[in-house]
């Protein structure tokens, strides 16, 4: 596997450097926007909060945005790398597991039938449940039958379930115009307009997901050599796969329930990181975490300035920043 960095020192150095950059970008995310905040005001807002307009912007809008973007971006990228390993398909992303579509469907269904009974806090659990249910269904469909769990069966079943759930979602939205208004806020995929409390609800799950992912790294390295080799080396492959799936659901499901469906990061960042440091998951997963966070926080900043004074959906800005990189990597690397 050709990669840019080979030595251990270089990998550590770049990871730390990127992490510092992430902190810088998060700070910029707090300071920049339609209303520019000075570093001094930021400090005051944290240490001596006085309820002024500027301080409220910092604590209620900017800080939550930066933190949510970092957590969601990192989680989506890690989930993407795990998904690509699990399905043995470099084009897979957590959405192939039906996670985004399942969350959207259950949310739209609940808004239609429960209406205003559903608070924003509840919406997060509804979305998380939808993501989990869809993933369970896909996993079941991917493993029933005589030949057991097969990556290709999982991929195909996942695509079918995803398409089905999205179709029902858009059908409900076409028939029920009021649902659209309420659901659109969430369905667009955004890290703005959320409270830190929203993130805190799912944060424990993300944390567990990160811990599980990093513990899994070695096992995934082995399983990437093929199931037979892995079994021969004494690995319980079925166990590893099930734990991987649970991790993906925790990370991607937690992300989608806070920020709505955000695509592309889950596919793009793992490819970027593989280009930098190769296919060793002990390095790949932390790199994905940091670079995914970096991309989403940066995209969130850009989304404020593309169409001043309005904001564009963060997906537009992610494409603006990410696509040139993807094209560059695809051209630089040699395949096959």
């Amino acid at each position, binding site marked *: 596997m050709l990669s840019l960095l080979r030595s251990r020192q270089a990998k550590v150095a770049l990871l730390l450097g990127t992490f510092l950059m992430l902190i810088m970008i998060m700070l910029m995310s707090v300071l920049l926007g339609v209303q520019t905040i000075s570093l001094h005001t930021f400090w005051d807002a944290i240490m001596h909060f006085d309820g002024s307009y500027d301080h409220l912007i910092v604590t209620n809008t900017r800080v939550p945005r930066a933190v949510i973007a970092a957590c969601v971006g990192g989680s989506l990228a890690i989930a993407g790398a795990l998904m690509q390993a699990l399905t043995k398909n470099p084009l897979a992303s957590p959405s192939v597991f039906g996670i985004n579509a399942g969350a959207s469907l259950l949310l739209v269904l609940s808004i239609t039938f429960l209406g205003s009974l559903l608070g924003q806090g509840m919406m997060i659990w509804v979305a998380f449940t939808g993501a989990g249910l869809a993933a369970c269904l896909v996993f079941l469909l991917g493993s029933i039958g*005589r030949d057991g769990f097969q990556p290709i069966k999982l991929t195909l079943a996942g695509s079918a379930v995803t398409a089905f759930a999205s179709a029902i979602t858009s059908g409900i939205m076409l028939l029920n115009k009021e649902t659209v208004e309420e659901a659109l806020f969430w369905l667009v995929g955004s890290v703005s307009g959320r409270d830190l409390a929203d993130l805190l609800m799912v944060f424990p799950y993300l944390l567990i997901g990160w811990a599980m992912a990093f513990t899994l790294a070695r096992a995934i390295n082995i399983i990437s050599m093929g199931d037979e080799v892995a079994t021969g080396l004494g690995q319980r492959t079925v166990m590893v796969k099930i734990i991987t799936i649970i991790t993906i659901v925790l990370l991607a499901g937690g992300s989608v329930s806070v920020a709505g469906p955000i695509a592309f990061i889950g596919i793009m960042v793992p490819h970027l990181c593989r280009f930098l440091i190769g296919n060793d998951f002990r390095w790949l997963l932390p790199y994905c975490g940091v670079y995914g966070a970096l991309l989403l926080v940066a995209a969130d900043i850009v989304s404020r300035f593309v169409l001043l004074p309005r904001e564009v959906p963060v997906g*537009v800005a992610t494409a603006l920043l990410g696509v040139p990189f993807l094209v560059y990597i695809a051209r630089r690397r040699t395949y096959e």
Partner: protein
Amino acid sequence: MSSLQKRSIWLMLIMLLLLLSVVSVSLGSKPIPLLETLRVLFTDADSPFRMIIQDLRLPRVTAAILVGAALAVSGTILQGIIRNPLAAPDLVGITGGASAAAVSFLVGTGGIFSIHWLPFVAIGGALLATFLNYLLAWKNGVSPFRLVLIGIGIATAMGAVTTFLLLVDEAYQASQILGWLTGTLYGTAWKHVIALLPWVLGFLLMTFFLSKELDMQALGDELAVGLGSPVQKSRLRLLLCSVALAGAAVGIAGGVAFIGLMAPHMARQLVDPVHRMLLPVSALMGAVLLLAADLIGRISFSPLDIPAGVFTAAIGAPFFLYLLFRKRS
């Protein structure tokens, strides 16, 4: 699979398509008795329903068949070239390019030009997006994986352009555009169908002639070169067919999802994975799916006309899962 079974699959699909066509022509917001429908279709007899059938329903049914077949074949080609089961016209930016072009046409020209140009603008967008993809992926030839990776980038960029345009536009045409993006055959006129009929049929035929080359592509580059196939040239030819078909389909019906991705997999569950068999069966499958989806969209919430794109997956996905597990249990 025995040849008898294969022949019965062919026969079943063709019968189903014919049956659905006739039912589609006779059912709708104004139901027409089946006998009357057949009389109008096959004789010159005078009938109060002639206008409805000839000018409204027949072009719509023809369009559904063409679009469904075109999308399915386009997806089959891409999955063969890219050798990845997730490949589809949506994934590599063909649909995205067509949508972005169509939306910029609707938003940017503000109604100066006739809406009848829309299908051709969409084809142009699809071709442009794929040309860009090919150009960026070119490096002593085009490797399938680079093509699809850059294709994902282009699809994402085109999606961003579409979203951006819808935001700038202040939504005065947004509902029309959203219907189009979901994929609908509402308001299809003979004009479009006749303009695109030779185009779609021509490229379908060309693809069937290229089915051996597609088999080669699916083997992998090294083996294909070893067997004497001009890999790069045939890849370009096949890619062109795929874009031309998907572009035309999106031009007529908008962004119909599911068929380009799943119809080829359905065909793979039914016949041997040789493209001589796969291509026609998935074309039939795609046509049947879209025709059924459009019919359900028209009659289930009548007088509302639900875009066919909603029902392609709603009926197609359960059927696909049934096919997937029928063989294994």
